[in-house]
């Protein structure tokens, strides 16, 4: 466990090394990036194997950083953060593998990429609100450049929108945190101290501050109606970056809600619970319906991301142990599945066919041209629909069980969202990969194959796909692996308070 902070340091050092290596050759930069991502992931996995689940938040580092303000550099980990650290390592490694074909300014690409990863690791390990906030903002700027430089459709618009939404969100968070600090009852920015300070606020004050902090984080988690950055950003981003954005960065927001907003201000949670739950369900249904009518393959996946993150927010809003544990599991599950879907769409298909329009893809017999991609996408689609045997199933089921206890109506509506997810996923599978599977295709196919000699799937793509598929299967078959970490962590003194507000 004590090695976990090195995930942060390794990533930042790796970012510098990749920048230097990129001046020599692209291959060197790739090697450095892969090595960094794998070793940071290795550190996380090593810690995971030695982890004994407990309700305690294990302090890893706690040294004075800015004594004048009482700020400590305090890193700590529990089962929840460990789950997300392992996810980050996996997503980072696979993201590097699926970025293997970046030829232009490779060193800079991986430098921004690894800096983003370092910020993400830092957020998941922070136990001090100031440190949390610093890492949270470090993760914003690299996203902009990754998308604006190496992205595709409408990239500058998508990048700026994403950066401004994230930054505006973090401004709300900063305002809320400083508001608590201004009460004078928090001697520093440690979460326990801030909780003390928050308790001295008036009821109205607590409700307002909760709204500031929760909304600020929820923007990044893609909460309806602040989700609009997500589809445009994901679509514009290069594959590796969209895997990270959907896979990990959106989790930063949800994690912030869970780790900072909810434990600090349980009274605020109680007040806003119906609103958040309502918005979450609205997001699930709305984004699902929008995904159903998209013409752009990547937009389908982008909106499906928003829909699935709605489940996370719904689980958090229900605020009972089952729902919250399910929300954390769904964060992991969605991180893996969204990564897989974006990898197939952005890298395997788009980089070869140079189109993402569903009606153009329909004319290609993709299931024959790219059988591997087709198989991966079908499996990932099944996982995304929440089929038993894949990680989406236990996650969404746990959330739905918890939500049912909170409000049966919302549970039914959210379950409806699962059906919509099945509909848009099946539509995407059918139209994109099997559009020419009909009888009239037979005559067409040979020409099409000759007209579009698609390059075969490379080894980095296969490795990445296998890693992600293995993860979703493993958790689908044995969700206890993660739930055993997550559930005890919810009983820690700081986290327990969130359950007082919600229905038990």
């Amino acid at each position, binding site marked *: 466990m004590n090695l976990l902070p090195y995930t942060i340091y390794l990533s930042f050092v790796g970012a510098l090394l990749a920048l230097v290596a990129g001046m020599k050759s692209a291959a060197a930069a790739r090697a450095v990036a892969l090595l960094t991502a794998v070793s940071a992931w290795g550190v996380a996995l090593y810690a995971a194997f030695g982890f004994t689940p407990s309700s305690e938040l294990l302090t890893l580092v706690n040294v004075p950083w*800015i004594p004048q*303000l009482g700020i400590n550099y305090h890193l700590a980990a529990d089962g929840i953060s460990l789950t997300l650290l392992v996810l980050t390592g996996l997503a980072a490694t696979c993201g590097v593998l699926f970025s293997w074909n970046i030829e232009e300014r490779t060193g*800079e690409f991986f430098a921004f990429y690894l800096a983003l990863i370092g910020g993400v690791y830092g957020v998941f390990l922070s136990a001090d609100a100031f440190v949390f906030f*610093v890492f949270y903002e470090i993760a914003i700027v690299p996203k902009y*450049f990754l998308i604006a430089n190496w992205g595709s459709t409408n990239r500058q618009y998508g990048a700026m929108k994403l*950066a401004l939404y994230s930054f505006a969100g973090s*401004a709300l968070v900063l305002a809320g945190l400083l*508001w608590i*600090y*201004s009460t004078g009852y928090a001697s520093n920015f440690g979460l326990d101290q801030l909780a003390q300070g928050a308790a001295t606020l008036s009821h109205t004050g607590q409700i307002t501050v909760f709204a500031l902090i929760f909304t600020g984080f929820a923007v990044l988690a893609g909460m309806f109606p602040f989700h609009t950055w997500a589809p445009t950003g994901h679509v514009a981003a290069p594959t590796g970056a969209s895997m990270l954005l959907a896979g990990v960065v959106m989790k930063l927001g949800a994690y912030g809600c869970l780790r900072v907003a909810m434990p600090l201000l349980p009274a605020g949670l109680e007040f806003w619970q119906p609103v958040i739950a309502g918005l979450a369900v609205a997001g699930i249904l709305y984004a699902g319906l929008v995904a159903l009518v998209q013409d752009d393959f990547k937009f389908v996946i982008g909106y499906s991301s928003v829909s699935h993150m709605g489940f996370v927010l719904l689980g958090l809003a229900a605020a009972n142990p089952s729902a919250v544990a399910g929300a954390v599991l769904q964060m992991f599950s969605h991180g893996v599945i969204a990564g897989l879907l974006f990898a197939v769409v952005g890298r395997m298909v788009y980089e070869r066919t140079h189109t993402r329009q569903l009606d153009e893809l329909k004319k290609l017999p993709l299931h024959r041209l790219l059988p591997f991609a087709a198989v991966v996408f079908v499996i990932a689609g099944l996982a995304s629909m929440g089929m038993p045997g894949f990680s989406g199933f236990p996650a969404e089921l746990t959330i739905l069980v918890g939500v049912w206890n909170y409000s049966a109506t919302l549970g039914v509506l959210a379950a409806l969202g699962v059906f919509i997810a099945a509909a848009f996923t099946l539509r995407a599978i059918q139209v994109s990969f099997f559009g020419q599977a009909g009888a009239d295709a037979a005559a067409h196919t040979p020409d099409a194959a000759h007209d579009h000699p698609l390059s075969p799937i490379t080894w980095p793509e296969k490795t990445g796909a296998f890693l992600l598929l293995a993860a979703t299967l493993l958790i689908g078959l044995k969700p206890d692996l993660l739930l055993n970490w997550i559930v005890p962590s919810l009983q820690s003194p700081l986290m327990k308070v969130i359950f007082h507000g919600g229905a038990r």
Partner: protein
Amino acid sequence: MNTSYALLARALQPEIILADGAVLVIAYDLIFGRRRPLATRLNTSLLLGALTLVGALIASVLVGAIGGFYGDNFVIDSFALATRGGVIVLALLTLGVASGAKVMRNPAEYVALILFATTGFTLMAAANHLLIAFAALELASLSLYVLAGFDKDRRESAEAGLKYFLLGAMATAFLLFGFSLIYGLTGELALPRIAAVLALGGMSPLLALALVMVLVAFGFKAAAAPFHLWAPDAYEGAPTPSAALIASASKLAGFTLFARLLWPGLGELAGDPSQPFNPGGWITIVALLSGASLLLGNLAALAQTNLRRLLAYSAIAHAGVMLLGVVIAVPAGPGPLFYYLFTYGVATAGAFGVIAVLENNGGCQKITDLAGLSRRSPLLAGALTIFILSLAGIPPLAGFFGKFTIFAMTLRIGGIASPTGILTLLAIALSAVALYYYLIVLKQALVEPSTPARSTRIRVPVTAAITLLTAAALIVVLGLCPSLVLGLF
């Protein structure tokens, strides 16, 4: 009254060194430089100037924080000591900027003027007496007016100098009028004794007038809205190193002087910062200036296409935060204010350093002139990224912590419902607006491809490269370890 001239001479060693150094630079150039090419004369002058500044820096550290001297007409507390050191470091950076900038006629005079301005800045840091403060401010201002109009080959430079001079002179008139009223009402010129007299009686209408006069002048000097009109033109037209000095060291010295004038001198009239809605006293006026600057600076910056004007409006926006820092300069200590001023100065001077090098390589007025910078010179692009992100307040760079500590302290002292608390929330909200225009700049530098007219690789002069790297390192190191600065107080 203890008027020991020996102590005075010892305490003012840095100023003596600076003034002597300025004379030496001119004399050396007169005697040996006549027949040399301009570039050589500039480099010699810069070297002598830099040595002078280093000498002054060492002297000021050796003098240390000795408290009040010469009948308490001067004071060197930790704030004054830090500001002296800070302005000298910023002046050094300005010389580095000049080494990469366009070579102008009369280089020795240019360097000498920078040294004279620095003398004024260090005196402003130590002044504890209305007349000394005024003389120091004028020494600095007059040098800056000339520096702004120094490029005799460009009309814009003359325009910048004239505008800066006319508005600055008007501000001076306001300031002097305010000072004379204060003197007339209290019968004192030294700040501690003014404070003692003010403690006996409260606010009077004449005193309120005096306060308004002083604060209007302050607004002009700090380029706070609505007295900011000179800043965009001065930034745009002035030679780049002059603009760097105006934006960095003069800000630091000016805010130090006014924080001292307002708190130890007129602290009785401050009002209560934690009072909701109307704190009374000068805090109300400073809060109004701050709010106007935040709004106008950030919103007007959105519309800029000229990089220097954008930096000017960003400076106005930053002045709004600095004014908040003035409000808490005594309740929370001067640490946050100094940290903000110094790191802002380093980042701005660095940004002008990048502009200076670019001017010698195809020009740099419009933001789009930065296009393709990352391919033309990774060093310049990387340094500019650090400076701009620091100005935008992105951690772990120094600009972030500067904002954070001022916001935290303002809220802590005033509470959320006070005018300063509301201004803080406004400033936090506007920082998201600010990110937009800073990212527009970085987008040109790092994302856009270069235009055919500006596509050659840029050779950065060694001294300029060292300056930029030093400034960037300062921003990163101070951002990671703010205690290095905060611990001084």
